[in-house]
């Protein structure tokens, strides 16, 4: 029940949610919802782990796992952008496909022994900063640091650059973007694939850094869905998504640690005494995310932040009428 340990663990496992959520933000900002995050993460996780087992090279696993997520996303792009099929249906199918494929590919991997993991780093100087040093900069996986860099870069890309301007335009008003010569189809393809690459990276982050090993579906265990909820909770903002990801993971860790001690604040720990109660603890993060969603949505409508206006709608050019 050491706050520093809980927060440091939150930042570490929050990095997985962060990558997946940032990827989904890119796709959704372009107007394409992709509910296949869970499937893409599983594929990324199994390919990364399998490669690391076979070659002994975790970096190669990271690259291939990331690419595998992107490859699966190409399928979603073809189905929803070229063939204009329902995005929700295609995304769900992608999750089933990804899950099944990962199970087959990972069949023998659960017996694989320890592998070489990606390195952890302590940043000299920064690690000595009181309070935040031990949480953010001590003994964290190299991918956690990648997360620190990805967030501001993604924010800058979306809000301060020409490609970002076009990305937002395509998701908010594809007709306007198309009239001005922005290639709506190409951009949507690109950002759906970017979303897949990030999901693959998220999956690889699990198996190569945060909780190594292959445990079938349980490797990802619904984190793809949490990432999608975090996108909504964050109202499609990268910074808020990062905070949400870290906070969610920290709370999950807290709820595990809370079951340990016999005494809690001088009283007998109810979760230690009665194990059934811990199932209620497991619900807490999910109840919390629903409560926060309800709380933020009213304010979001007033401030006109929120879902891109064209989210989930296929764009068809040159239809008569409007």
């Amino acid at each position, binding site marked *: 029940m050491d706050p520093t340990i809980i927060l440091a663990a939150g930042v570490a496992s929050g990095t997985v949610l962060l990558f997946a959520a940032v990827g989904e933000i890119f796709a959704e900002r372009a107007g394409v919802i992709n509910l296949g995050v869970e499937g893409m993460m599983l594929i990324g996780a199994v390919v990364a782990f399998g490669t690391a087992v076979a070659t002994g090279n975790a970096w190669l696993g990271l690259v291939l796992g990331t690419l595998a997520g992107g490859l699966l996303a190409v399928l979603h792009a073809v189905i929803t952008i070229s063939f204009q099929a329902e995005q929700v249906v295609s995304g769900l199918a992608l999750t089933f496909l990804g899950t099944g494929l990962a199970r087959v590919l990972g069949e023998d991997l659960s017996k694989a022994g320890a592998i070489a993991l990606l390195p952890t780093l302590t940043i000299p100087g920064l690690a000595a900063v009181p309070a935040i040093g031990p949480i953010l900069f001590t003994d964290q996986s190299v991918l956690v640091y990648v997360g620190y860099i990805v967030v501001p870069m993604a924010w800058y890309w979306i809000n301060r650059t*020409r490609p970002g301007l076009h990305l*937002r335009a395509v998701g908010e008003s594809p*007709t*306007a*973007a198309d009239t001005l*010569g922005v290639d709506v189809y190409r951009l949507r393809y690109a950002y759906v694939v970017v979303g897949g690459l990030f999901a693959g990276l998220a999956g690889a982050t699990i198996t190569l850094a945060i909780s190594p090993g292959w445990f079938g579906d349980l490797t990802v265990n619904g984190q793809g869905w949490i990432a999608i909820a975090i996108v909504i909770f964050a109202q499609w903002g990268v910074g808020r998504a990062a905070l949400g990801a870290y906070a969610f993971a920290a709370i999950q860790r807290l709820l595990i640690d809370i079951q340990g001690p016999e005494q809690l604040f001088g009283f007998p720990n109810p979760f230690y005494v009665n194990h059934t109660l811990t199932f209620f603890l497991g619900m807490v993060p999910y109840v919390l995310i629903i409560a926060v969603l309800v709380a933020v949505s009213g304010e979001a409508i*007033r401030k*006109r932040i929120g879902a891109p206006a064209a989210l989930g709608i296929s764009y068809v050019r040159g239809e008569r009428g409007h």
Partner: protein
Amino acid sequence: MTLELVIPDPRLAVEMRGIVRRFPGVVANDGVDFDLRVGEVHALLGENGAGKSTLMNVLDGLYRPDAGEIMVGGQPVEFRSPRDAIAAGLGMVHQHFALVPTQTVTENVLIGLDRPRFRIDIGRYDDEVAELAARHGLGVDPRARIWQLSVGEQQRVEILKMLYRGARILILDEPTAVLAPQEAQDLFRTLRSMVADGTSVVFISHKLGEVAQIADRVTVMRRGKVTASGIPISETTTAGLARLMIGRDVVETIERTPFDTGPVVLSMRDVEAESDRGLPALRGISLEVRAGEILGVAGVAGNGQSELAQVLTGLRHCSRGSVTVNGVEVGNRTPRDAINEHVAHVPEDRTGVGSAPNLSIADNLIMKSYREAPVSRHWSIDTGAVRRFANRLRETYSIAAPSVETETRLLSGGNLQRLILAREIASEPRLMVAVQPTRGLDVGAIVTVHRLLLDQRQAGSATILISEDLDEILALADRVAVIYEGRLVGLFDAADADVAEIGLRMTGGMASRPPEPGDAPRIVP
């Protein structure tokens, strides 16, 4: 307004020859010729569906022509997209603006450009846009987000977008349809100064008055063909143009017999309501409408008209005040309560609110009477009675369709509106709420709708007519209320209403003459 005399350069900016463009089931352009001289305003006049917008969409590269050739500045061109058109100096402002509501004015101007390469130094571009706006009298704050702007300002952003890209040929598709009279005058002034600068303008319209005011020459289209090509405006008459446009003499005057008003049907007291975004949309509306009276509500789009109609029909809650119909409170109740008080609703959005497009004509017609005999007995619907009921209405209101089993989405705009009116009138309204009842309809259908509304007035129902078309209000209403930012800012007798005064108040201007008895004080009963 002083009109500068501009002698047009005889060199042609645009030349279109033999343009053919087909859509499934229609030939929208059937061998159309059109030319635009450098430095002129050329009006393209025609009814809805005459093919004006299609022709200009072909010119702009949005549609590919099935046949014909286009020359811009003497060079043959084949635009694949509006981007090609703009590269050739040709920009179009559509009726429905192509703007991104959540982005700023400057961001909207920059979309699709090659410059800046990557990083956007927004401050620098804000200054550029402000300077361009000032030069052409297009006052708008470059840092404002589009959703915060009025429709008139949004239109200026569209024009700015084209000018920033160096457009020398500007196509405006019914630009005044969304503007208040004063805003239209501002636009005309801007266009005049641009034309004096050597810009050429195509001005699409179906309003004869404004064409006569702004255009140098006019081309008239009817049913996909040109009926008059590039006539100097000085050689035309309003009646002559109308004949070319409609193909027969127009019977403009609507018969309006005086009618004694009856008791108060609708009474609103101090009604306040919020918009979907939670902002105040109605701020203390009080009014009365009597049986046998049409109250016209005039205003620029987005000043609370939609919310007013929704409050009256039970579709929106009011945060304060009361709404009674025949003395029964209907405010903050359900749409069913409003229907039970015989409140009829002809909504603005015909396909989303007024009908269920994938259901049959018969199903749409019984939507208000399905609970009662003869359509239903207890909980079962008598399909025979439905067919008889629907067929009767189809004939009475001449809804053109193969059968009442036809899906409603296949109806034309005019027929759909006839269907909605048929259903609403069959419910024997005491209060009729009609919102934009003729927008987008052709002249024949407009006349039908107007006649039906006047028949209802004659039958003693109270009518509230919400419209952005001031001419329509003045033609139909007995009294005119002006709505601005959720408040009633003027109430006039239609018989002696001053159009300039109404127009001024629609845009938030104050009374230019001292208030007379019978003006604003009459708003509050």
